[in-house]
């Protein structure tokens, strides 16, 4: 129960993706002839969606560039790539919540330039045999990067489809070698008011550091990743560089950004939003159209980008459409109470 070994059925989408399209996107866009055929065989009408040629180049350290170029592309993709078309990079990187940099959705892009992400180290501690402070590259280097195209559903009832680059969190946890007491994983974001101006606000109702948590089986689930890139490049600062969590079946606020500490713990952590308003935000925060936020409905979401006269409102799906993969984690639980 504690450490869930991935079943062969868990990652069926990547299993049917032929080796040929794992090649780098840029090489693919360069026009290798046989590749088109391979792509067609894969059954994913991906070609148009995955052109990152207009995404601005970042400033990644060499080790990260290498990891990205060796990534397994399209490891998980939406089953309906037309309905779940990628959000443009500009929208995903200019319109998001990262309260460490301000409360307006444009604030992260405006103010996150001050964040210094190189070098970066992460403390792994708590109920582990192999803890310590690790340089980011040492923490992630043994794993191959994978591209995961996930729906991201914000608790504020909007959503975007984003192509992440990262590694399964399970691999980091396994290397940390949890003890039998480890039941939960607790994450912490950097606290540095010098670099993060939102943390300087004396009116903030968040008690820094931002804290998030997962049950160990959720953390070990193959869909759960630690992302270091998106759109074929490293993460922009405003999207949680250099290391963030992505849990696609939970509301976006669970996917904590700019992580400096990962602790294996025995007790369920109190995540920041639960601490601020436990009647509005729970520990689980699974996407659930049947349980409304007290101040707005969760039955539908606005898929962004939208336009003025088409709000692009779509029905929200149970577990954000990942029900087949994750529902068993919550068997027997009352999701109205454990929201």
């Amino acid at each position, binding site marked *: 129960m504690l450490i869930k070994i991935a079943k062969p059925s868990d990652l069926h989408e990547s299993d049917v993706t032929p080796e040929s399209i794992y090649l780098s996107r840029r090489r693919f866009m360069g026009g290798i002839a046989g590749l088109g055929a391979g792509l067609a065989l894969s059954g994913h009408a991906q070609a148009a969606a995955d052109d990152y040629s207009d995404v601005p180049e970042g400033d990644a350290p060499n080790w990260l560039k290498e990891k990205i170029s060796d990534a397994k592309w399209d490891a998980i993709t939406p089953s309906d790539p037309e309905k779940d078309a990628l*959000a*443009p990079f500009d*929208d995903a990187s*200019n*319109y998001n919540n990262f*309260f460490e940099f*301000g*409360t307006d*959705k*444009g604030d992260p892009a405006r103010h996150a330039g001050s964040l210094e992400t190189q070098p970066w180290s992460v403390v792994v501690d708590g109920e582990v045999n192999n803890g310590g402070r690790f340089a980011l590259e040492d923490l992630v280097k043994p794993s191959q990067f994978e591209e995961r195209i996930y729906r991201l559903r914000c608790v*504020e009832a*909007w959503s*975007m489809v984003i192509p992440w680059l990262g590694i399964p969190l399970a691999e980091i946890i396994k290397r940390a070698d949890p003890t039998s007491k480890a039941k939960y994983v607790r994450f912490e974001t950097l606290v540095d008011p010098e670099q993060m101006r*939102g943390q300087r*606000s*004396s*009116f*903030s*109702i*968040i008690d820094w550091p931002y804290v998030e948590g997962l049950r160990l089986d959720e953390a070990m689930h193959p869909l759960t990743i630690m992302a270091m890139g998106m759109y074929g490049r490293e993460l922009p600062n405003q999207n949680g560089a250099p290391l963030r969590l992505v849990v696609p079946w939970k509301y976006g606020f669970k996917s904590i950004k700019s992580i400096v500490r990962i602790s294996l713990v025995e007790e369920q952590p109190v995540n920041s939003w639960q601490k*601020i308003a436990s009647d509005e935000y729970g520990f689980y925060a699974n996407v659930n159209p049947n349980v*409304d936020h007290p*101040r*707005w*409905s969760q039955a539908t979401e*606005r898929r*962004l*980008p*939208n*336009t*003025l*006269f*088409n*709000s692009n*409102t779509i029905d929200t799906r149970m577990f954000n459409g990942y029900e087949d993969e994750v529902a068993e984690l919550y068997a027997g639980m009352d999701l109205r109470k454990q929201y």
Partner: protein
Amino acid sequence: MATQRKWLAWRVAVFLAALAPLVFWSWQVANNAAGPEPGRYLLLHIGIGALWLLLLTLSLTPLTKLTRWKGFALIRRQLGLWTLAYATLHMLSYALFILGLNWALLGSEIIKRPYIIVGMIALIGLAVLGATSNKWSMRRLGKRWKSLHKFSYVILGLVLLHFFWVVRADMQEWAMYAAIAALIMATRLPPVSRTLPKLRHRLSRA
């Protein structure tokens, strides 16, 4: 004649200044510079604009007392009506761009969400004040007109409550508006309101 033309120019300038933000925001939306959710962009900007206009309208009386400049009183009705116009556009943006004119959803949202109820009450209040802002109503209502229009103080409170309930993480912006509102209301307390003309004398002598 020349002074009359001067006051007309002043009122037209105020009209254009109040119109300008709407033109600018529409321009941003038309040029895809309003982000991936243009409807929400308009909703939030127009909402904050309505609050600004309400605060400006309510600051005209203390400003008149403080300066005795006639221009402030001349634009009071105009700014009040602009507040109503912005608040109406704010509500329409919500119905049109956020709810997508799904009236059934609007019905259930209004009942379930306290901040929407509070906002609707404030809007209805503004509409009543707008409808009675003409000379005919002033004559009809006589003394009662003044007490009716003091309801604008209650509306200010409702608007701040509406805003308070929408805030998710940081109270700074809200606290700023609340402080300005408190200052404007404080000038209406009898001891303060008596002091304002004296303050003007002292300022003019200095």
